């Protein structure tokens, strides 16, 4: 290391001397300009040099750290680094200059050195001063670069002794004569600092301990150092990546270069290759690698073709193909065939039509020639300008930009397949489907019918004020009770041994003896209908109802304070509920026939429409206009449950004989099925009737229910309720029963099922009762 350094310095010195010669021939002005540029770079080199030395001192055991410390200025070192970085651009320009005018640089540097350096150098330069021209100098440089550094003899005469021996002495060693060689006087820190400040070249100076002198690095050297620091080859010319030239001639070799046996891996298939192959195979299978190049699309395309189907455009989700222009047809022709030219009549009728209605078959040339007759032009040349061109292109633009931006997907589904799968009607037999019997005799609309529990008799009430008793089997009218008012509602007592009839008309509720039962039953009925000593009614009740004997037919008359709209018997046949639509909060009362007592009415919110007893338990269902409330008969007034129908106006209500299902008919023609185990919302809403539903009914034993409406029809449904709680009721519409004629806006006013047969009675406003049988 030490040797190299010294060698460098020698070399440096020589170059300097040469450059100095050159500098003589260069103009001074130029020198100065260049010097300024070079300065910062030199600083950097110095710092690098110092760093290098530091590294050296760390690695080289020969050196003593302390000896070096004196020559190094760590503060400068840091600051210089930053400076150098800032001046990166300048360095580059300087590099460029150097390449172009290498000689000049040498000269400049030399001149610089000349100013600053000590006597020794000058003297050397002076010795060589007179020697030859530039060409010889170049040769020498070339020679020196080739020469080995080791050959240069050390200049100091102390010998090859460790310097530490004289560490504390004033001399550095002894010369040949035995005299002490004194150390150069050491600059103290302040001096060195001042020197640095004064001389910009100072950073390049290095103290050579061995020779006890200061050495200034040349520019070449600093570059060398810089390259080495980067880890590159020291010489810029050196190319580490020169192509390898194989000088060995392999052809002649008889023997292998290595005597090692062939390794095993040469014989077994490579795992890596196998993996790679598998990878490719998979890629091929997946279609990631394609062998066949995709055929190039022909460069021709369908000018009028449908581009909506082209793949490229339909890839985009939002692509909406522009509406197509019409293909040119005969009407576009300037010389159409004769048959396309409209006749006079056609033209006349065409003119009469509205613009939108005009058909397209008439050649546009007609409209082209605004209100002029069609022309056939003998040649293209004679066609005038198209008057509608602007308008049509405007319309086309409108078409394009007003086109809907939402893509409508039209789904081609057979509407039949969307229908729910319902069981066949044939499998749900029996159900009423055809009318065989009619019960004629009323003169007014039949408002209400009721079937006797055995199914032998039915009773009907009419607006003509009569209540009739019919024999179901023959259609024979057995009895007529005539009243003054229109009968609103009739209801048979559900007990078979009490064939009595409750009839509501106006404000009166009349209990009639039908005189149908056996003698013993008749006796019981007569006892029941005897108004003996009436118990003193409560004041609240007395204001609503009063019990009176019915003189006309020997029954009981219960007079209410409002018109009765609906009545219903309790299953035990003793209690009877009446609903007064206008009675508001006192609209529902319950009468007990055996005790001749009317119980305190419920407080109803809203107008009551209908009240129905639960078929097996002590609940009362009260329908108001919009909701159905369930009251417990035994306990409090507050409803147990509230069913929300979501309908505008409830007209009727019926409860399934099982007690868990309820149907509610409304005046807008809707019918709701409530499954009370399921929810308080309708399980199913059926919208069948175009007009008001007048009544709904359940069959007592068959899975049937029906609705009658003012549209003169009655609908029969299959409504099966399963014992299994997991299964929802099955509702299937079965039959539309027509036959009644509308009169005075009323159609079918009531419907009731036969208690034992799958038959339906319907009461019409046309004063006929019909029986629909299976």
């Amino acid at each position, binding site marked *: 290391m030490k040797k190299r350094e010294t060698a460098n310095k020698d070399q440096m010195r020589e170059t300097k001397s040469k450059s100095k010669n050159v500098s003589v021939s260069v103009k001074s002005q130029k020198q100065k300009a260049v010097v300024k540029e070079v300065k910062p770079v030199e600083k950097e080199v110095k710092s690098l040099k110092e760093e290098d030395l530091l590294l050296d001192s760390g690695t080289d055991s020969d050196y003593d750290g302390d000896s070096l410390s004196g020559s190094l200025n760590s503060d400068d070192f840091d600051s210089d680094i930053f400076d150098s970085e800032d001046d990166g651009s300048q360095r580059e320009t300087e590099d460029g200059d150097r390449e172009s005018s290498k000689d000049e640089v040498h000269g400049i540097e030399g001149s610089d050195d000349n100013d600053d350096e000590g006597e020794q150098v000058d003297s050397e330069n002076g010795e060589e001063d007179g020697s030859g021209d530039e060409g010889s100098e170049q040769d020498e440089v070339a020679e020196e670069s080739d020469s080995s550094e080791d050959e240069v003899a050390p200049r100091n005469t102390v010998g090859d002794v460790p310097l530490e021996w004289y560490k504390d002495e004033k001399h550095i060693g002894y010369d040949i004569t035995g005299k002490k060689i004194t150390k150069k006087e050491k600059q103290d820190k302040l001096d060195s600092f001042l020197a640095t400040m004064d001389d910009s070249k100072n950073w390049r100076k290095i103290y050579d301990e061995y020779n006890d002198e200061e050495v200034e690095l040349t520019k070449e050297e600093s570059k060398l150092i810089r390259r080495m620091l980067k880890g590159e080859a020291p010489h810029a010319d050196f190319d580490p990546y020169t192509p390898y030239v194989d000088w060995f001639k392999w052809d002649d070799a008889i023997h292998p270069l290595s005597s090692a046996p062939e390794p095993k891996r040469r014989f077994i298939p490579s795992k890596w290759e196998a993996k790679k192959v598998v990878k490719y195979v998979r890629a091929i299978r997946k279609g990631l690698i394609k062998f066949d190049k995709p055929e190039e699309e022909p460069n021709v395309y369908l000018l009028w073709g449908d581009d909506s189907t082209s793949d490229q455009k339909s890839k985009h989700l939002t692509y909406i193909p522009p509406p197509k222009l019409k293909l040119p047809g005969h009407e576009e022709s300037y010389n159409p065939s004769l048959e396309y030219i409209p006749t006079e009549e056609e033209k006349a009728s065409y003119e009469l039509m509205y613009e939108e209605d005009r058909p397209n078959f008439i050649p546009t040339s007609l409209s082209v020639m605004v209100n002029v007759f069609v022309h056939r032009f003998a040649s293209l040349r004679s066609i005038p300008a198209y008057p509608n061109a602007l308008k049509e292109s405007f319309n086309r633009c409108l078409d394009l930009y007003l086109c809907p931006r939402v893509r409508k997907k039209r789904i081609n589904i057979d509407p039949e397949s969307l229908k729910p799968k319902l069981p066949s009607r044939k499998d749900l037999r*029996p159900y009423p489907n055809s009318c*065989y*019997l009619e019960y004629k005799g009323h003169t007014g609309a039949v408002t209400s019918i009721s079937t006797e529990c*055995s*199914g*032998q008799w039915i009773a009907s009430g009419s607006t003509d004020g009569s209540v009739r008793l019919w*024999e179901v*089997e*023959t*259609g*024979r009218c057995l009895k007529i009770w005539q009243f003054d008012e229109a009968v609103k509602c009739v209801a048979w007592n559900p007990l078979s041994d009490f064939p009595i009839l409750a009839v509501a008309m106006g404000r009166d509720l009349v209990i009639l003896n039908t005189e149908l039962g*056996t003698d013993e039953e008749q006796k019981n009925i007569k006892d029941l209908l005897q108004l003996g000593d009436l118990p003193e009614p409560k004041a609240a009740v007395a204001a609503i109802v009063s019990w009176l004997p019915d003189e006309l037919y020997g029954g009981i008359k219960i007079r209410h304070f409002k018109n009765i709209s609906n009545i219903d018997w309790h299953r035990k046949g003793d209690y009877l509920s009446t609903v007064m639509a206008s009675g508001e909060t006192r609209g529902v009362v319950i009468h007990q026939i055996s005790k001749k007592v009317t119980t305190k009415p419920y407080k109803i919110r809203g107008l009551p429409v209908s009240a129905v007893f639960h078929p097996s338990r002590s609940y009362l269902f009260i329908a108001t206009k919009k909701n159905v409330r369930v009251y417990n008969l035994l306990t409090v007034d507050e409803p147990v449950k509230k069913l929300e129908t979501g309908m505008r106006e409830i007209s009727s209500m019926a409860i399934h004989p099982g007690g868990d299902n309820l149907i509610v008919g409304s005046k807008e023609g809707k019918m709701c099925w409530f499954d009370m185990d399921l929810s308080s919302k309708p399980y199913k809403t059926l919208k069948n009737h175009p007009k008001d539903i007048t009544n709904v009914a359940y069959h007592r034993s068959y899975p049937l229910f029906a609705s009658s409406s003012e549209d003169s029809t009655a609908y029969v449904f299959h409504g099966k309720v399963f014992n299994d709680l997991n299964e929802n009721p099955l509702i299937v519409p079965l039959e539309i029963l027509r036959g009644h004629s509308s009169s005075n806006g009323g159609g079918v006013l009531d419907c009731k099922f036969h208690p*034992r*047969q799958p*038959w339906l009675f319907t009461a019409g406003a046309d004063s006929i009762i019909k029986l629909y*049988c*299976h």
Partner: protein
Amino acid sequence: MDVEGEDAAKVIHVKFVTKLDSPFEAPVRPVVIPSNVTRLGLSTIVNSLLTLENTEPFDFLIDGELIRMSLGEFLLAKGISAERTLEIEYIRAVTPRKEENPSLHDDWVSAVDGSSPRFILTGCCDGLGRLWSSSGSCTHVLEGHSGAISSVAFVNSNGAETVTVATASKDRTLRLFKVDTAESVDSTTRVRAYKILRGHKASVQSVVAQKSGDMVCSSSWDSTISLWHTNDSASEGESFAVKKRKGNNQAEEFQSEGEAETTFVGHTQCVSSVVWPEHDVIYSASWDHSVRRWDVPTGKDSLNLFCGKALNTLDVGGEGSALVAAGGSDPILRVWDPRKPGTSAPVFQFSSHSSWISACKWHKSSWFHLLSASYDGKIMLWDLRTAWPLSIIDTHKDKVLSADWWKGESVVSGGADSNLRISSGISIC
């Protein structure tokens, strides 16, 4: 004449045969007739062959089937070759030739019985039974019921002096009447029941008498069938109540009351009709959609035919007196053969009616003929050998409630127009 030539090309050689006696004996020689002749054409041909004074309508049978279309079509439909000489049997057409004067009642005629050739027994909805002589005059009025009579039956019509009849009523009772036939025919005599049969809890729907006349059987809305004794002797009537009837000008009468001998329970709904064709067998039809056969000594039902419809009427007859015909709450008259094993499907179904069937009766002597009455106001005569009615009697203006054969050649029927109508002159060979 091309057309005639074509017609002539399709000719059939036929030979008419018959079982009828003179003057309807068949001509011996075969004749050639065109294939497109219908029943009317055949009838005129036969009439012309027989050279009858009064034209007589005939019906024609080929291999036991009645012809109801043109001859050619019939042969085609049945697959009979037209090459060979065809044997056509002709019978006198089953159709009424004469309509008797109707006998007016006060109310709907709900029941009629024509099993006695001397009388026609009718029941009326006003609660009166009437006995009509063959001359068309009402000889006896049977009174006593407080409700409409639903069914009437001759119990013993062969008695020389008295005829016993039974009536069933909606007032839950049956009444037995003894009618003295020796009385003068001129005036109407009112008859009171000699025995009142109480026990049913609801309307009695049907009554039928045993052949011997000892017992009657009744069915009721309370879904029971009861058997009653008809004799009026007090020896067995434990409730031997003698009642003093409110005095008409007639003398006081004794009325005994009877209780049911046996009650058959099994039906679940109204038993609408019973028949007692044999000594030990009773058939019943009910609204519970079943037809049952009861064994009288044991009281068990030995047959249960399920129909699917509520049944109103039932009769047993036909071949071997074994076929069951029943009609009910639909327009189809069904005929079952209980002897056919393993099936309860009807063997014949006649569906020309348009409303409920209220009555059906087998002809007493023919195996093939039966009548049916319906609420559509029509009475139809049927032959098992064809699916169409032989004849339709639509003289009633309203529902026909009851109908029966009378004297083997007449149909008597009562309806909601309060008339008893008699259509006579039906020739059933």
